[in-house]
């Protein structure tokens, strides 16, 4: 009995000691937002741990605390028994933590071998010893079963092989924990398969992998355990073999719908189709068919990278479609520039307000008038009376808070900046307004105002296409939801069918 107890203790102890990386009670606050709330995870030696959650669940922030890119407000990072309050890129490397980012850290004009030893080349005196590096690189590649000739220029390699070099580099630098952020996103199907093989090989050699992916099938194919995050909080750890996809999805989205959305009367004109897409392809999307009725708010759901922004870029003439038809107001249109789309009556409130939406250095008045300047000019000279009247009209109707319309837009709050952008499109007399993540980075009170404004637009006879990665917002505001995954439409739901689990399932394409 005593011996058995000893044995159990010993097992327990080794189990505990086998944690190669522990994040303990990690909390990260940004001004006004808590990105991570008391998140603890453990990574065992030689396991593949999947980290999943919706957009904005806190996955990226969490792994950035391991690399030193984010300093946690509180909490501890324990690597192989050593405690840290925060990491730095050097500390992470010294302690065997490596991250494979989506953007590779390579030099395209150097060989595979030279990239492997980038910043730390093998030398012979002051000369670089190319032969030795190629020899060592060959060893490293053989170890991972990667078939790359060490002298090949990295620029000549496919994305899949470039990623392999990144992995080999991490292993070369004695990484014990490899963190991979959406590693399969840029790869083709066969490349993904090779990458899996490398991951499995690494696991068998005792390397631990934290694997982040939106693709649930990959997670089931590859991982040993799954950690679920939601809204910056730790939800649960599952043993992959013992869990089911439905349970997983429920854990990812299973929040109570708490925020309320302003009511609106039904404005849909059933007979009038304002926008129709027929087999539209291009920009990463395939065969998109959809209809949008006048006065309707159609929500586009999906995960980041599902192809929603890409779709509206084609409708707005920012990127050319390769196939299919766009029919607007009964006529086929083929906008080649945003200008043409605007002239047809289409408007876009882009996702990145500061980089694409508003002209930050330019005044509120000029921003509102920007799409119509040509129209309100006679012989190129701006009619300044009309210019001011337009700006004042939309400042009043949208309640833009500012001491003067001369104010550069950069001095406004996020909500008011968004109103200026909306005002610009109202001035341009747009019929269809596309909102891409309209409330991102906007505080709660202003969010509600934006929602009310969107309702008013519908009541005035405008039509809205809404892209939102916030499940609640999408369900709270839309009349109908179409879900995209990897460039395809994977489902359509009417208001009565709205359900978080269903949408998530469609978005993950399982």
């Amino acid at each position, binding site marked *: 009995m005593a011996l058995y107890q000893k044995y159990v203790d010993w097992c327990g102890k080794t189990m505990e000691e086998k944690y190669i990386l522990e994040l303990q009670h990690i909390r990260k606050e940004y001004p006004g937002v808590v990105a991570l709330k008391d998140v603890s995870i453990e990574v065992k030696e030689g396991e593949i741990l999947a980290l999943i959650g919706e957009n904005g669940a806190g996955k990226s922030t969490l792994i950035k605390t391991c690399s030193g890119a984010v300093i946690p407000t509180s909490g501890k990072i324990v690597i192989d028994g050593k405690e840290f309050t925060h990491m730095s890129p050097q500390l992470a490397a010294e302690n065997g933590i490596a991250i494979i980012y989506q953007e590779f850290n390579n030099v395209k004009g150097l060989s595979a071998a030279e990239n492997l030893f980038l910043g730390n080349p093998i030398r012979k005196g002051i000369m670089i010893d190319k032969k030795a590096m190629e020899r060592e690189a060959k060893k490293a590649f053989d170890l991972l079963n990667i078939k790359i000739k060490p002298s090949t220029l990295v620029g000549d390699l496919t994305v899949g092989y470039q990623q392999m070099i990144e992995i080999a580099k991490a292993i070369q630098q004695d990484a014990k924990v490899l963190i991979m952020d959406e590693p399969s996103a840029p790869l083709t199907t066969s490349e993904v398969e090779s990458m899996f093989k490398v991951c499995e090989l690494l696991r068998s050699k005792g390397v631990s992998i934290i694997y982040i992916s939106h693709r649930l099938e990959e997670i089931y194919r590859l991982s040993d355990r799954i950690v679920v995050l939601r809204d910056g909080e730790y939800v649960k750890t599952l043993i992959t073999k013992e869990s089911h996809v439905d349970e997983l999805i429920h854990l990812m989205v299973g929040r109570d719908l708490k925020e309320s959305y302003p009511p609106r009367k039904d404005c849909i004109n059933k007979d009038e189709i304002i926008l129709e897409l027929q087999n539209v392809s291009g920009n990463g999307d395939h065969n998109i068919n959809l209809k949008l009725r006048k006065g309707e708010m159609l929500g586009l759901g999906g995960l980041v990278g599902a192809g929603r922004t890409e779709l509206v870029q084609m409708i707005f003439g920012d990127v050319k479609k390769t196939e299919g038809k766009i029919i607007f107001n009964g006529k086929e249109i083929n906008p080649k520039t945003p*200008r043409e789309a605007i002239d047809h009556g289409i408007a876009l409130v882009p996702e990145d307000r500061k980089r*694409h939406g508003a*002209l930050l*250095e330019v005044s509120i008045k000029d921003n509102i008038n920007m799409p119509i300047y040509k129209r309100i000019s006679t012989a190129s000279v701006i009619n300044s009376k009309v210019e001011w009247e337009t700006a004042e009209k939309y400042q009043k109707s949208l309640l833009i808070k500012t001491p003067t319309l001369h104010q550069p837009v950069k001095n406004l709050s996020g909500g008011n900046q968004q109103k200026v952008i909306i005002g610009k499109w109202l001035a341009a007399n747009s019929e269809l307004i596309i909102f891409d993540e309209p409330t991102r980075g906007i505080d709660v009170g202003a969010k509600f105002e934006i929602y009310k404004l969107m309702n008013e637009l519908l009541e005035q006879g405008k039509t809205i296409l809404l892209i939102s990665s916030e499940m609640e917002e999408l369900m709270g505001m839309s009349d109908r939801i179409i879900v995209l995954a990897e460039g395809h439409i994977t489902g359509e739901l009417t208001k009565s069918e709205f359900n978080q689990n269903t949408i998530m399932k469609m978005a993950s394409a399982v």
Partner: protein
Amino acid sequence: MKNKVLNIVKDKAIWIVFIGLFIGFSMATPRFLSSNNLFTIARQVSMLGIASIGMTFVILIAGIDLSVGSIITLVNIIAAHLMVDRGFGMFAAVAVSLAIAVLVGTLNGFLVSTIGISAIIATFTTQIVFEGASYLISGGTPIYGFDERFKVIGQGYVGPVPVPVIIMIVCFALGSFILNKTYFGRYFYAVGGNEEASKLSGIRVGLVKYLVFALSGFFAGLAGIVMLSRTNSAQPTAGLGYEFDVITCVVLGGVSVSGGDGKMSNVIAGVLIIGILTNGMVLLNVSTYMQMIVKGIVLALAVGFDSIQKRRAIV
């Protein structure tokens, strides 16, 4: 209130520098303040001023035009060639050479906008091409012997005021009008501030770039005509290195090299500062080489000041 005063001071800082320099030179040498000398300065800066208007537009959209000097030379040579060797009348020669200036400016626009070469490289290459063309047409020798009336543009007077100064004033008024009253002006600021957001606001960014470089070609060409009339002989080195002085004036006038910010009125101050600096140094017998060093330092100071302000704004 205090902020407001500070902002006005900041906005007019360049004029304060101008007044300071003006007073400084007046005290250093009595010849500086003579009315004769002041008109000489105005006449000397007139070509610089005219060319700086186009450059202001270009820099406002975050571009640069290094071919300004070579366009000035090209216009010198072509106008002279047309009048002397081809028997063109004075007005026809001026009109044709200005049209060519607009055309070569448009070529810059084509390289930057349609082909997508960065402005600095595109105009650097065309600079070499235009210079070569000037040598080719002139055979490397000066061209002279124009109609007496042609002298009026560069050497004439209306009352006490030199004609080139009047041309410069009209051009500044025109430039200011384009920038402040027409919708193109609004587009220049928008494109310079954020190209992507401008495109998504419905501005045809590509066309704006064409227009800006064409305008730069036009004003450089006009400066070339004034120069030809003043010197009364077309030299194949007429505009050599002129773009440097023009860029210095514009940047000194507070037009941000990163685009989207600047005022025509302050560019005038930039032009005047370079004018009195050059004139004052000549009066004080500062050597040409020393003058180059001083001008280089002035340009570095102006760009440095702009960079520091931009960095503060971001923090």
